[in-house]
């Protein structure tokens, strides 16, 4: 293993002071990496002890005092507990601390008051914030991670995350989604497993530690097996029209599992893990109806992003190809923002602009900078990369123009906040 890879892997560990066997062997034999590991370990310890000065105004004690002095609650069983008088409690707390709580806390009080009075359905809607689409956010974040992944093993890990996200979202809505929508999700899952994950297998390093490789393959094979089982079980509970879709997902998972097991043939049996992987659970608190509605709005964009991510993960792609795929991702987001601005949907513009910013800042711009550094300006790759940079600058200008042409969108505070972030990107593209 190369020293640079070892050193990076040390910094990626949960705790650099605890080296796994694969890294330990190299570190023991390499003076440079040994020094690096010791440096990283010392840094971790210093960070652990980094102090913070004491809080100046003892607000904790004040809040605890107010909470403890509040009237005791009489629990009545089995009748549901009466809603606590949090508004009253907060009011008393704020009165006592009015000198420094100021306008901010007063605003919180108003929110609490409104919260206490509103019907529970409306409260639920506030808590859910339905216009944010966690599925879309996660796919963009996976694309960032794919742009940063350097090795087939790292890409396998990210693609496994993509498959997790898609399968969890599919299962969440499977009982009530139209079969056609469900099939769109299942197709994305199928592509991620068959064209993404499986494709990495032939490119795992030949000299990879056999035990490490066996463990890696077993982890993802077991995970896919869990996905297949979950889809098959759910297929028994969904409307007949949706059953073939879940079967298709289960088949893809089993195909992927078989490919991984085949690759592991002849390798030592991996040690038993602490707990078997399970199919990914949904993490979003959105109702299934909201998930379907948001997928109807964002399904095309999500498909573009997943496809670009799979293309980016292709081990045969060159660095310049990956720059192109990154530009495709950013372009897909720009193309979605224009119609949202035309429809005067300011919140959607803000959300998509923020996702665009995150992807370019953490994914596209660093990759562009690396490629410009690696390819001389006059080389064919260098010229292609610089051409893509030019397109990216144009995309950014178009995005700003699309947002700017409608006053209602332009003046929305969330949009203004999101647009302000874009200034950083102009510099990032120039560098």
């Amino acid at each position, binding site marked *: 293993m190369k020293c640079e890879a070892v050193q990076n892997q040390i910094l990626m560990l949960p705790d650099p002071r605890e080296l796994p066997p694969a890294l330990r062997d190299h570190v023991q034999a390499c003076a440079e990496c040994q020094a690096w590991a010791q440096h990283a370990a010392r*840094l971790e*310890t210093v960070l652990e*002890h980094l*102090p*913070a000065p004491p809080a100046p105004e003892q607000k904790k004690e004040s*809040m605890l005092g107010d909470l403890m002095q509040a009237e005791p609650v009489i629990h009545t069983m089995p009748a549901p507990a009466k809603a*606590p008088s949090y508004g009253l409690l907060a009011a008393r707390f704020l009165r006592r601390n009015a000198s420094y709580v100021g306008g901010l806390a007063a605003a919180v009080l108003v929110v609490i008051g409104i919260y206490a009075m509103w019907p529970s359905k409306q409260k639920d809607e506030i808590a859910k914030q339905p216009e944010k689409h966690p599925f879309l956010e996660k796919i963009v974040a996976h694309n960032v*991670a794919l742009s940063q992944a350097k090795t087939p093993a790292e890409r396998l890990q990210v693609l496994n995350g993509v498959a997790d996200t898609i399968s969890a979202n599919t299962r969440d809505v499977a009982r009530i989604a139209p079969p056609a929508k469900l099939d769109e999700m299942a197709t994305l899952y199928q592509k991620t497993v068959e064209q993404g994950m499986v494709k990495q297998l032939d490119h795992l390093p030949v000299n990879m530690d056999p035990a490490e490789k066996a463990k890696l393959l077993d982890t993802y094979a077991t995970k896919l097996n869990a996905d297949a089982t979950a889809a098959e079980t759910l297929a028994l509970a969904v409307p007949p029209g949706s059953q073939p879709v879940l079967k298709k997902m289960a088949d893809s998972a089993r195909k992927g599992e078989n490919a991984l097991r085949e690759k592991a043939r002849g390798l030592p049996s991996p040690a038993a893990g602490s707990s078997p992987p399970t199919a990914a659970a949904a993490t979003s608190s959105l109702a299934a109806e909201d998930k379907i509605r948001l997928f109807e709005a964002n399904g095309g964009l999500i498909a573009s992003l997943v496809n670009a991510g799979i293309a980016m993960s292709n081990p045969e792609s060159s660095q310049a190809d990956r720059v192109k795929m990154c530009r495709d991702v950013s372009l897909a987001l720009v193309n979605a923002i224009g119609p949202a601005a035309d429809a005067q949907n300011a919140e959607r513009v803000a959300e998509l602009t923020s996702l665009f910013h995150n992807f370019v800042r953490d994914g596209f711009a660093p990759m562009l900078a690396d490629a410009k550094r690696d390819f001389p300006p006059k080389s064919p790759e260098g010229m292609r990369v610089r051409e893509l940079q030019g397109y990216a600058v144009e995309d950014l200008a178009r995005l700003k123009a699309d947002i700017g042409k409608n006053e209602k969108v332009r003046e929305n505070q969330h949009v203004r906040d999101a647009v302000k972030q874009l200034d950083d990107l102009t510099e990032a593209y120039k560098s």
Partner: protein
Amino acid sequence: MTREPVPDLPSNLDAEAEWIRAAQAGDRAAFAQLVDRYWDRLYRWLYHLTRDRHAAEDLAQETFLRALAAVKTFRAGSNFRAWVFRIGHNNFVNQKRAERRTKHQLPDDAAEPDAITAESSAEHREVLEVVSRAVADLPSDFRSALLLRVYEGMSFREVAETLGTTEETARWRVFKARQKLMKVLPQELLPPGASSEEPKE
């Protein structure tokens, strides 16, 4: 000085689950237990995000007020610590946005080495001061992820849950933060005495 060792979490999840259930039923004393358990560690993290004691304390207070108002919506069985820290992080992000809008700059407590190092032993004072400044110079996304991992001992999955991102991105941010610190902190600044542990072999 807020630097007591953070007790391992989750050390008493049964008790915590009971406090949460009681708080959801309206028991304020139970909520006070939760405030007591998480305030100091939330404040410490927020201090390193804001570099301002007053702002960190205000944010901690606002976080628990919001948590109090929303505790009934907390899903039983999920991670309360990540939930509270996520509210804190959202407050911090909102404050930064508001700050940009008003062009108001927060005072920078990081420029008060005496406050930071008053209880530090002499030989570590310089190290802590330099590392504090280097951490303060990290982009806030990297800083928040690194400190959740190191201070709170959160797994990458919990860091992701707190910051509303993926596990891979959380891992990447911690990696980038460490990488930047390794670059700016030469080995001489981290003498072996600064560490109680070498890599375990």
